[in-house]
């Protein structure tokens, strides 16, 4: 048994909570190599998401993620608004009609989401962006789904992979986004977007695993 609508809703709420709790942390990371707003941006967006998803009546996973996407796109701005909007829009598309999200559906959806982010933002792995957390997470999900792991195992591996990917951004020189303007000076700092992407994977783990 995979995750249903309540678990997906809990994941969205959990991500909002994690972003709020880490608002200053994400902003401080962005101050180092960006413009000191990533936590503020994400928190504004996820705070706007909460009443929107609370108002949803039909328990449709795809519709839920579409609402998150549209709300992020119209409230976040910056680079992360369209990019996280793209993540959730792709989750919505991939999970159309889905009521029970198992390891393989989630692996496929996250894989498609990170591909959509790459096609929009043109970031390659190693460019020091959210892609560096999302790509390894998607790979871990695919691997565990192929191995036949449980959803809980797959989600835990994805969080760990996102975390490692996030930490691996520290030595990188940014080649996309605002941090790329810094050139060599961007090395030595953790990417804020990769950090929020890790929080997203963690929220997925905590909420979706409960569906098992």
């Amino acid at each position, binding site marked *: 048994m995979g995750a249903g609508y309540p678990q997906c809703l809990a994941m969205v709420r959990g991500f909002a909570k994690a972003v709020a709790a880490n608002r200053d942390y994400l902003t401080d990371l962005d101050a180092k*190599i*960006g*413009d000191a707003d990533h936590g503020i941006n994400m928190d504004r967006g996820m705070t706007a998401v909460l009443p929107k998803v609370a108002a949803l009546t039909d328990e449709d996973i795809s519709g839920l993620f579409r609402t998150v996407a549209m709300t992020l*796109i119209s409230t976040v701005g910056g680079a992360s608004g*369209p990019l996280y909007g793209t993540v959730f829009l792709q989750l919505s598309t991939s999970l159309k009609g889905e009521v029970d999200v198992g390891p393989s559906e989630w692996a496929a959806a996250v894989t498609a989401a990170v591909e959509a982010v790459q096609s929009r933002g043109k970031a390659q792995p190693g460019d020091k962006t959210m892609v560096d957390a999302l790509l390894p997470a998607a790979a871990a999900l695919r691997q565990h789904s192929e191995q036949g792991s449980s959803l809980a195992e797959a989600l835990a591996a994805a969080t760990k992979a996102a975390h490692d990917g996030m930490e691996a951004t520290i030595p990188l020189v940014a080649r996309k986004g*605002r941090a790329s*303007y810094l*050139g060599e000076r961007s090395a030595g700092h953790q990417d804020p977007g990769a950090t929020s992407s890790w929080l997203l994977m963690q929220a997925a783990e905590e909420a979706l695993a409960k569906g098992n």
Partner: protein
Amino acid sequence: MKKLINRAEDVVREELEGFAAAHSDRVKVSLDPYYVMRADAPVHGKVAVVSGGGSGHEPMHGGFVGMGMLDAACPGEVFTSPTPDQILAATKAVSGGAGVLHIVKNYTGDILNFEMAADLAKEDGIQVEAVVTNDDVAVQDSLYTAGRRGVGITVLAEKICGAAAEAGRPLAEVAELCRKVNSNGRSMGMALTSCTVPAAGKPTFELAEDEMEIGIGIHGEPGRERRKLATADEIVELLATTVVDDLPYRSGDKVLAFVNGMGGTPLIELYVAYRALDRFLKGRGITIERNLVGPYITSLEMAGMSITLLKLDDEMVRLWDAPVNTPGLRWGV
């Protein structure tokens, strides 16, 4: 944090309300979603020029809305690009049937949000062309990065393209002109102090009493390097050399020289800097045909300045001189 504000989360809305109250003769302001437009928009048969970006750079862009410059501007949150729905709503509101030019500064967020909006506007049957400004030579331009940032040239492009649109030129020409202005413009900035994003509540970076940041962005992004404080003449020489050598500007060229204040630097210092720039360019055989001195593309209360040069031809001079009536720039009317 010492600011004349109420709650940090209300700054942009309250600024827009104040702006609307002060300039209702020339602009209309939408608060949901946020955008500023010419009071007489849409102007039928005219190309509409739309820009936007994070707030905190005032008077850019909202202050440049009006006859002869922008038809609309979309302010995002402080230092955060606007969202597609704002840009779409503004684009629709000012579209006069002759197409819309989006002038977009080269930041990932601005590009992505304007792209989404342009896609949606096209679905609605509005012809949109986007031109990206990227004049900041502090940043290495490379295929493998987000490229150079868009800074001071944006102000000049908005004026010149606004005049061309006002003169009835078609979208393709106005867009081409915008690309020409951008490719003939180069900028570089520096900061003496940091700015503080209201919602962050503390300075984006710390500079010691004897330090300055060279190549600063307009969002308090760290610059090219941190240096010991120098004199105005030395700073101008450093910035101007980098700018002039980049295009390069050559002896005999005619330029518009734009000395911009970052928000916390008073006019007296900008004129000291302009003096140095005037001498520097004379030394290189470059003639200042037109100039602009003041805080036009700012970074909240940051102290510092930037230099923008635009190589002029006769058409650009004529369009620069054409009447403009906006809260931030006005002449000829």
